[in-house]
């Protein structure tokens, strides 16, 4: 009885293609539906894959299970002969009714499967979404960055490193990065002034855009908005830098007894002009407990990842910072007969901290 039932079912079985998405899930798809995708068709013909679960075709990364489901729905409908053009058009119009994010994912997935009719359909839908919008609106709809100026990109490379372990070397790097960011801003301001003074200087991208595109007042308004946004971002950066500087100051002064953490001392550190008269009033300072800890790290190098973060300009900053060291040493070493050795960069770009402390 059971064998008889099997015999009846067997002749009706279809051919199937096995497909695997990037998350590892595997599914079985009717052959004529799957082969409607040129990429899958090529894989089957060229490699013979797809005939079993063990030899499933691996789909591109952009095709996740949800997108694959949608694409197969599209293929199921369109690979059937006999639908009228009107029916196909009606199906397409309903098919692309989805939110923009999903439409973007579907476009990418269809493109990776080389399913041109679907790519054209979704691209046209996305073009219709774009029509009539302002740049701001498009950025919002598609979650895009406002990154059209070079300086902004460059500044992003100088984000402070996170100093989880309170490493003095990272504090130093962050201070150097902060200095460079500040210099970039000053250079940018200078560049703006130069642009105003010398009309033949190369224009910003936005100027070229508006002129070449024959832009009207709307673009002018857009540019104003963009400037406003850039200003806000710059302010945020300034705040971050200020906050970072404050943290650095606190950490640097941490070894000192709290009794001496006062305004006069800070002023002495910052005001080189009158430091001589002020130093006379400073009391002796005992560094022993903290510097014993630092002794243990004397031969450590920066780890390779951190080394790669450093570049020539940071080294220049460090050298410039070193040139100020003698003055600071003089302040810090009052009442001491010991010499301190400054932090320096070696030719490989690594940082060594040397101490010559003698225990008495």
């Amino acid at each position, binding site marked *: 009885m059971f064998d008889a039932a099997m015999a009846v079912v067997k002749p009706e079985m279809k051919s199937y293609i096995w497909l695997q998405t990037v998350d590892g899930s595997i599914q079985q798809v009717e052959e004529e539906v799957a082969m409607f995708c040129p990429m899958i068709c090529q894989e089957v013909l060229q490699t013979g894959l797809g005939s079993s679960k063990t030899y499933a075709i691996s789909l591109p990364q952009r095709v996740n299970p949800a997108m694959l489901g949608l694409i197969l729905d599209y293929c199921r409908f369109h690979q059937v002969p006999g639908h009228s053009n009107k029916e196909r058009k009606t199906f397409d119009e309903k098919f692309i009714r989805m939110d923009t994010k999903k439409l973007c994912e579907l476009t990418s997935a269809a493109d990776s499967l080389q399913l041109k009719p679907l790519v054209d359909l979704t691209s046209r839908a996305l073009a219709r979404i774009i029509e009539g919008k302002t740049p701001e609106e498009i950025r919002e709809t598609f979650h895009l960055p406002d990154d059209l100026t070079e300086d902004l990109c460059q500044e992003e490379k100088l984000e402070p490193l996170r100093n989880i372990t309170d490493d003095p070397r990272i504090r130093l790097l962050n201070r150097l990065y902060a200095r460079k960011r500040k210099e970039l801003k000053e250079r940018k301001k200078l560049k703006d002034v130069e642009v105003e003074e010398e009309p033949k200087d190369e224009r910003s991208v936005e100027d070229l855009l508006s002129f070449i595109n024959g832009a009207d*007042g709307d673009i002018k308004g857009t540019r104003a908005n963009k400037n406003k946004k850039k200003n806000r971002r710059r302010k945020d950066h300034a705040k971050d830098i200020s906050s970072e500087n404050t943290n650095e100051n606190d950490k640097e002064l941490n070894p000192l007894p709290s009794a001496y953490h006062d305004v006069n001392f800070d002023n002495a550190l910052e005001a080189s002009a009158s430091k001589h008269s002020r130093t006379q009033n400073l009391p002796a300072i005992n560094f022993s407990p903290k510097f014993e800890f630092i002794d243990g790290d004397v031969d450590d190098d920066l780890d390779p990842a951190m080394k790669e973060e450093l570049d020539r300009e940071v080294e220049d900053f460090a050298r410039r910072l070193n040139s100020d060291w003698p003055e600071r040493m003089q302040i810090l070493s009052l009442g001491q007969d010991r010499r301190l050795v400054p932090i320096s960069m070696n030719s490989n770009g690594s940082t060594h901290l040397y101490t010559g402390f003698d225990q008495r």
Partner: protein
Amino acid sequence: MMECRRKKENQNPNSTFPDEVLERISGMLKSRKDKSTVSLVCKEWYNAERWSRRSVFIGNCYSVSPEILTRRFPNIRSVTLKGKPRFSDFNLVPANWGADIHSWLVVFAGKYPWLEELRLKRMTVTDESLEFLALQFPNFKALSLLSCDGFSTDGLASIATNCKNLTELDIQENGIEDKSGNWLGCFPDSFTSLEVLNFANLHNDVNFDALEKLVCRCKSLKTLKVNKSVTLEQLQRLLVHVPQLGELGTGSFSQELTAQQCSDLESAFKNCRNLHTLSGLWVATAQYLPVLYSACTNLTFLNFSYAPLDSDGLAKLLVHCPKLQRIWVVDTVEDKGLEAVGSHCPLLEELRVFPADPFDEGIVHGVTESGFIAVSQGCPRLHYVLYFCRQMTNAAVATVVQNCPDFTHFRLCIMHPGQPDYLTQESMDEAFGAVVKTCTKLQRLAVSGYLTDLTFEYIGKYAKNLETLSVAFAGSSDWGMRCVLDGCPKLRKLEVRDCPFGNGALLSGLGKYESMRSLWMSDCNLTMNGVRLLAKEMPRLNVEVIKEETYETHQAKKVYVYRSVAGPRRDAPPFVLTL
């Protein structure tokens, strides 16, 4: 043929789409504004738009250099360029002013060797440039020259001889040296690709045998506009070969015909079932208009701007044009003809009425406020009007815009400068006040008649979508121009001639000119010092004065101001001073 392809390394793994998809989407955007918007979104979209763009429009050939253009858009196939200021149409720009296409073509030959289309307006084009164009661009397909000068039929011969893939040759309203009609014979016998042929404004007799052979073998021809020298009999012979035409320019439409010839012509027109645009009739004879009637069923555009029809002839023709959307006529149709337009053209969107003889003072004909009102009553969809007339009233204009509030282009030209409302003798201020108050979509406005500063107060207060304003013989003081500059946020072109606006008005727009395409001021109250101050304050503008001997040295009689990323002109003639 290989397109330049960006390196894969540049692809951003976090991007919304692969580059080819983003470029495809960008390529699907039809409007120039949308393309411009996409390029301002972010760096990735800027690049997608940059690489996918195939056609570019440049509204002023001195606002950008060919080097900047080719650097920005590497894959252009079609270029549209405009040159001289528009007032060159009124002989206000001297000869040899510039706008020569050749330097652009030289750069394009190196960077855009696959250029296919070139559309030029008010540019200077020499025969040498046309020969260069014909020889350097093997894929060249379409040439459109509108209001250009500097070339002759020798240049056309070069194009005909060498452009193997030509589909469009559209020569219209040019200052051309028409040496002979033999250029038509220069198309090779193997040439069959032509779709558009327009030489309506040439004057010489053409080689008709060559034309007939050309028309016979170009099976895709859909636009044919012939010049005056083509007779009705010759037209009939052509039409027999190309009944599929969509656009026809008839030539003179005047000849003594036998009854048989007349019958043959009528039969030829009867077979033209696809005609949507008709122009020509340079010397129309009312006697032969009926042969056209059967071909008018699908007409949407009648261009009779050179056809001296009378009102009766026009009225009888319009009965047969139920789908007309655009009509250009000469004022010989008089008010009665315009009443016929109002009666028979409910779908009309655009009306242009040109003066047959703008300098004729004695003859009492032409159109008046009566015809204007009649059209507005019968054509509620009207949104573009260019109306040359000899008299007008405030009340009539107010009635017109009440009837048709959707005007985007309103150009009224009362032909006698400084003429008031002819009934009340008041200024025409309230007329244009009504226009800008009622027509909120107004983009282009041309004013005329006796006007005080009040007109410009109205414009500054109400015309919030205005992009182009033309002013002649109008205004009372600087205040008028200041109102416009302060009040019209989308203004892109301001054209002023013979108005009392001075340095104060000019300098009041300092914050405005960089967002405008151009400003033209001629025969106003500007001085060289005022214009120099503008140039000093706005270094990114090109401020040019056209110096002519007849003026005092301290006066700036012709001033042209435009924004440019290309810097000062490199080809300015001696009479153009760049400040």
